[in-house]
């Protein structure tokens, strides 16, 4: 029933993908480091110009602050030109560290997906019946989502380090601690199309939560950084510096308002996915256990995650909570997601305890 050779092939693909991710991570990090060194006075001047330009700009009356965000997008573009477009950057077509990393990440993702798919073929079922499969599949989704965002908006490639890094950590955890041999499903996971729907949506939701948390953390760092720089500029420093090398890395990244609206978009899609996860999970639970909700630990935690993300969306629309405070709420939501997949799966024993773990 289980095709062991294919299962081994799947494993091999994932191991090679991990190696490629490591290389991609090095590339992304090197790019950040080098570009932060290339930071020129010109760029600084551009930022000052941006601040000057932004100050008299009318604040939007709306909750979203879309027009301020729009202005900031342009500002970010000036401040952080794509590496091969900037005056001091290499000519187009040459291999920059970032492009190299991006291609590697792409290749790694292809292998990663191949690993997930071969595992599915080997076991003749969907590849998410245990923690190992759940982790490998959801990280693949994170990478696909990230690459998709990057293809649409090249400046987001600068976030590569912060996406590939966590993905790598999860994959390594999966490969060392959670790995279980390919096997068929236990009866409670069998013959339910709701399994496929519920868990695929859960994977998507998890992946988006990871991505959202990355963006929200960067947003928090960036806004602190920006505030410090503005403060120093106001104190009369001509070339304000803050957080040394890491500050230079942040200078490379989009402005905090851009990150904020990106974080909101990612989180709002994530929230819709969590909502569907809850609903489909309830439908499946009714088919399997005869009740749609029973406060099983896994259900409790999905509920908690959902409520926290609802609070995040609320916070974003509540005066005094917009911006950084809302971002903290989003990170609390991510903490709940992490808890749900680590402690709840391993320590707390419920009906959802996966076979083999």
């Amino acid at each position, binding site marked *: 029933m289980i095709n062991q050779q294919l299962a081994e092939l799947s494993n091999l693909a994932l191991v090679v993908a991990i190696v490629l991710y490591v290389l991609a991570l090095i590339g992304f990090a090197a790019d950040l480091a080098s570009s932060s060194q290339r930071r020129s006075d010109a760029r600084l001047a551009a930022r000052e110009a941006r601040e000057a330009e932004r100050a008299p700009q009318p604040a*939007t*009356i709306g909750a979203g602050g879309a027009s301020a965000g729009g202005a900031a997008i342009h500002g970010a*573009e000036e401040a952080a030109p794509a590496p091969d477009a900037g005056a001091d950057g290499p000519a187009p077509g040459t291999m920059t560290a970032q492009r190299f990393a991006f291609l590697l990440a792409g290749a790694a993702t292809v292998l990663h997906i191949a690993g997930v798919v071969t595992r599915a073929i080997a076991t003749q079922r969907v590849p998410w019946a245990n923690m190992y499969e759940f982790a490998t599949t959801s990280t693949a989704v994170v990478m696909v989502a990230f690459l998709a965002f990057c293809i649409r908006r090249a400046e987001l490639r600068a976030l590569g380090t912060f996406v590939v890094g966590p993905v790598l950590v999860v994959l390594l955890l999966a490969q060392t601690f959670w790995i279980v041999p390919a096997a068929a499903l236990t009866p409670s996971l069998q013959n339910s199309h709701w399994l496929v729907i519920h868990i695929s949506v859960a994977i998507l939701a998890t992946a988006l939560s990871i991505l959202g948390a990355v963006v929200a953390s960067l947003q928090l760092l960036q806004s602190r950084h920006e505030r410090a720089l503005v403060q120093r500029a106001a104190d009369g420093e001509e070339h304000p510096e803050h957080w040394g090398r890491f500050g230079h890395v942040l200078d490379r990244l989009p402005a905090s308002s851009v990150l904020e609206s990106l974080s909101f978009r990612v989180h709002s899609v994530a929230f819709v996915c969590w909502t569907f996860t809850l609903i489909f999970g309830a439908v499946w639970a009714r088919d399997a256990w005869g*009740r749609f909700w029973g406060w099983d630990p896994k259900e409790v935690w999905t509920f908690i995650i959902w409520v926290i993300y*609802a609070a995040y969306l*609320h916070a974003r629309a509540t005066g005094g909570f917009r911006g950084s405070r809302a971002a903290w709420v989003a990170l609390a939501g991510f903490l709940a997601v992490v808890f749900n997949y680590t402690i709840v799966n391993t320590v707390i024993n419920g009906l959802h305890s996966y*076979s083999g773990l």
Partner: protein
Amino acid sequence: MSQDTRGRDESSRWSSKRELDGARPAPPSLGLRGTLLFLWRQLTSMQTALILLMLLAIAAVPGSLYPQRSVNPALTEQFLAENGRWGEILDTLGFFDVFSSPWFSAIYLLLFISLIGCIVPRVGVHLRQLRAQPPRAPSRLTRFTGYTRRELPGADADTLLQSAHRALRRSRYRTAVREETRSRSVSAERGLLRESGNLLFHISLVGVLICIAGGQLTSYRGQITVIEGDGFSNSLTQYDSFESGAWFDETELPSFRFTLEDFRATYVQPGESGTVGEPRSFEADVAVTTPGQEQREQTIEVNKPLHVDGASMYLLGNGYAPEVTVTDPEGSVVAEGPVITVPMGDTGYTSQLVIKAPDARPEQTAVVGFFLPTGTIDENGPHSLYPDALDPQLALTVHQGDLGLDSGVPQNAYEVDVTTLTQVTDENGDPVLVRLYPGQEYELPDGTTISFDGLRRYAAFDVAHDPFERWTLVCALAATGGLILSLFIPRRRLWVRVREADGGAVLEVAGLARSDDPMLEEDVSKLADSLAGEEDGAGPDGLRDSGAPTPTDDHREGSAP
């Protein structure tokens, strides 16, 4: 300037929630009524909703960390026994019934009161907004998103205004054309559906809560155990256990009957991948009869319940029922037929067996021990190695004495207290250990005989029904629909102002975003371009999609490499 203020007023009034947003300070000393009003405003403010949501999340946490009585009563008792005083304190605080504890209930009830208090006025405001005309253009458009000003010598102000109006209508804006001092303007508005969706979402949440409460009151759930070959007909007396809501009416129990014809289980065999002995499949073949319908055959599996009108039946457990006959020393049969054994939870399905024979003479007799599907007896005592019945056997001891069945205290059929009984011993005084294979009979020294006549399986089902279940799902899906509208429909306003200037016209266009709306700026300038272009005789290009961005419009910034 005065007009400007009016414009601002308008735009802050545009959102119904602005008015509700944030608590306004209570005027000093308003008496009881004022204080109540103040408290009500506090309760229905966004901050309160936010805090209550966070509290709800935090309050749910102990519900996953401590065993819950409603989920796992046995584990709860164990925890209480192990933790003594600390356990008692936690119990008093409701930590083992978190989801029905006063504090958890208080949080969600406050949240929903706040929610209702928040929705009701918003619905009113929103309905008025739906009927109202888009508000007047602010006198100074320069402060708004994407402000564009074009001087068009030779242009006709009337035509310009008309084509602006037409273009906006075509892009599904609600519009209003207004005369102003020395100019005319089109106000356009789109995305009211966002607020409708938001209201639908919040209202449906209330619906979900009501349906869940309704379900609690009217649903029922019972456990039954059926041995292969036996039947079940639905009535309260047939249940091993049964619980129902306060409004449940016994007469609503649907009448249906079924026979369990066959039960099959398969397990991971040695040599297969996976953990040996782990279950692969459970299947119960039943023949069901419902009133007015032909008998039908169905296989119930995990995840594949049986549905009849008014009830569903779920396969939740199974085990072995060995057929055992006990004859007392006087020769009368005191126990006969299949006995339901209780699996102990190991992979091998070692199962506990209890037979009570109160009619045995000269003394009442209890037979206790184990059924072993693939049995072995070693230093760990009798246990089973594999869950399938490859080498079925019984390992039993026999006890005699007063079973206490007449004491009036209800007894669990699957348990007996042997400490008050005397164990049957052989001539050396050692306890008699009976080991039986199918077809065998064993005679004890006193003449009692026990025979293992055959083996059947049994299946345990839950029969349950929640009349509100369907409506809960409908409300949940409606909420999701509303949520999607509310999150992804941009809400915005656009204004076009045309003023006649000597020999031509001056065109001004600007927009206001009321939600994340990265396309607004581009849409405004596109509209301005196309209006200006039309006047220049370049034709009405781009008009059609001026307000309806295609997804590909989205990467202004993406073209860098």
